[in-house]
């Protein structure tokens, strides 16, 4: 009874509105699915068995690989630098068994005996010009896309919130400087700026994240500034200040939670566009290092091989399309749900 008397919170309303939107929920499911794929990429596509029994002992090579990478464990000498597939084929007898992941290839596993194979039961999405399995590369490529999307957007949301909040809250000279900075950054052609910087940095995912992060903050800053200008003279803010709340407390505890919805919506669309930027950069050859599989770099490779094979262009492109569309759908759903004009409908 007590809970029913409390007015419904803003985020509660947004969530309720969002849940009604079946398309948006479907988009969210795809986004979560992509996250699971990215997180468990090594358990979906790897040349090492998930579990195997060899001479009465059970091993977990995929997990072991993580442990070895972290430095907590070492490979047994008999497994050091071995290809598990060869090992299984040559050393196993009747009592031994190995359970491989659904895709039994690593993203960088070269096999010159199966070059440019079309999709088959063995290679679900075919192979490229040096025999790397496309399915495995697409699965592992999701890691690059999603991590770039998230880290880059987090960087610029943080910068944008900080600058926008300062400008909107303090006004005056702070606002003037911040607004000029926002205006300048919004006017510079962003994509061109990004490739100018990225082209001459050593290829790395981190560099891409940082460059996207520091070039895209102005949109968030402008949104936050506007929301702060609207909110700072509202009664509850004045009341908080009258009660003696410090500036920091007023900004972060009172104003920010009420202004963050549009930023959240912008960030969702931002992830979609960051993923697009990353894949374009990798496509142009400025993106990830060659050892990393990325959707853009698979496509770039496919373009250089003409005639290549339809599987090389279709699947990585579909992966990008699916990801970007789902984020856009979720963003639209959030925007509609957060729009106060639609609340009553």
């Amino acid at each position: 009874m007590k809970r029913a008397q409390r007015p419904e919170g803003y985020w509660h309303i947004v969530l309720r509105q969002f849940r009604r939107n079946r398309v948006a929920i479907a988009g969210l499911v795809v986004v979560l699915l992509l996250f699971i794929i990215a997180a468990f990429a090594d358990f979906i596509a790897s040349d090492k068995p998930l579990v195997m029994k060899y001479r009465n002992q059970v091993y977990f090579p995929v997990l072991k690989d993580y442990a070895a990478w972290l430095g907590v464990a070492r490979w047994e000498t008999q497994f050091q630098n071995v290809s598990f597939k060869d090992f299984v084929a040559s050393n196993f007898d009747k009592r031994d068994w190995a359970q491989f992941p659904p895709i039994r290839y690593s993203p960088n596993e070269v096999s010159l005996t199966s070059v440019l194979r079309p999709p088959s039961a063995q290679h679900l999405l075919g192979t490229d010009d040096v025999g790397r399995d496309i399915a495995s590369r697409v699965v592992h490529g999701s890691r690059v896309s999603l991590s770039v999307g998230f880290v880059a957007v987090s960087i610029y949301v943080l910068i944008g919130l900080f600058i926008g909040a300062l400008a909107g809250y303090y006004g005056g000279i702070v606002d003037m400087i911040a607004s000029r900075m926002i205006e300048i950054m919004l006017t510079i052609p962003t994509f061109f700026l990004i490739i100018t910087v990225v082209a001459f940095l050593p290829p790395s995912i981190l560099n891409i994240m940082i460059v996207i992060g520091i070039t895209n903050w102005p949109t968030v800053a402008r949104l936050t500034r506007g929301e702060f200008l609207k909110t700072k003279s509202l009664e509850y803010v004045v009341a908080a200040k009258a009660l003696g709340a410090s500036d920091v407390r007023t900004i972060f505890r009172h104003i920010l939670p009420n202004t963050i919805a549009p930023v959240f919506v912008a960030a969702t669309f931002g992830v979609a566009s960051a993923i697009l930027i990353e894949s374009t950069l990798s496509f142009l050859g400025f993106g990830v290092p060659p050892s990393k599989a990325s959707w853009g770099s698979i496509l770039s490779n496919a373009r250089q091989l003409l005639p290549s094979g339809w599987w090389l262009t279709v699947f990585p492109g579909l992966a990008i399309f699916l990801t970007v569309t789902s984020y856009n759908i979720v963003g639209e759903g959030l925007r509609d749900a957060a729009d106060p004009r639609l609340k009553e409908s």
Partner: protein
Amino acid sequence: MRIYFVKRLLLMVPTLLGISLVSFLIIHLTPGDPALLKLGDSEQRSGNQLLAAQIIDETRALYGLDQPLYVQYLRWLKRILTFDFGESLRDHRPIIDKLKERIPVSVKLSGISLLFAYLISIPLGVHSATHPYSIGDRVTTIVLFGLYSLPNFWIATMAIVYLGGGDFWNVFPVYGLASPNAGSWPWWQRLEDELWHLILPVTCLTYYTFAVLSRYMRVGMIEIIRQDFIRTARAKGLGERIIVYRHALRNSLIPIVTLMADLLPALLGGSIVVETLFSIPGMGSLSYEAVNTRDYPLLMAIFTLSALLTLLGILLADFLYTLVDPRIGYEKSATA
């Protein structure tokens, strides 16, 4: 009104200065040495280290790259005041000549693309808005949403691979804007040849703009159709056609027309990806070359030009507002 726009024009100067300073710093502070690049691999491989070092030093001195950054920036500013963009580091040609060559190509390409985008999206948006939630509207909404998220480098690659003689059909040319020996053809043949070359790149450039415009058009039109003056027009017994095309359309054009301002920089900037993939010698591929060769003066010229265009675009948007909607005026804000 005029005073307001003059004021706005003058306010652009400090912004442009800021932009040029930021671009200058970014370009010069990122790693990569144009003198080294210019030297190329051949001299480096020859093993004559002394000669190589000497060439690098002389190249730097020649272009003033050995000076402190602020001196270089001030020099650049001084030259730009007389519209002197300097010489390309790569082939010593004046940058202004390069721009003169490339800009018309991009203007043509983007101009055609914009024209098509508007020509298709306006009637489509109107139809969707006048038949909301019909099957046609639902299908267009879904298709437009899809177009919105399609990476253009993917579409361009697919077009080249499947329609340009890669894996399947060899229907369209995928290299440049004219066939190699087109110079000697009569004009109608040349025109046909060029149109044939334009189809794929223009499609790749257009679909995104088209999707954005149509979505705006539909939303704008739906909002207008719900307003009182449309109901009044219906009550008077006006025909649906007149209501839609004379009363509603004019009012719903406002957001679409002002979007033009956002699209203006694209007109010149071209598309880096599409122009590079189709080997079209426009501003987009020039930008790509400038990045790859670290051509400082050329990079600066491109940055400044596109920033200038963006600013002019914003100004144009504000001006267009007053044209399409006489209720909007800037006199008050000009005095404030």
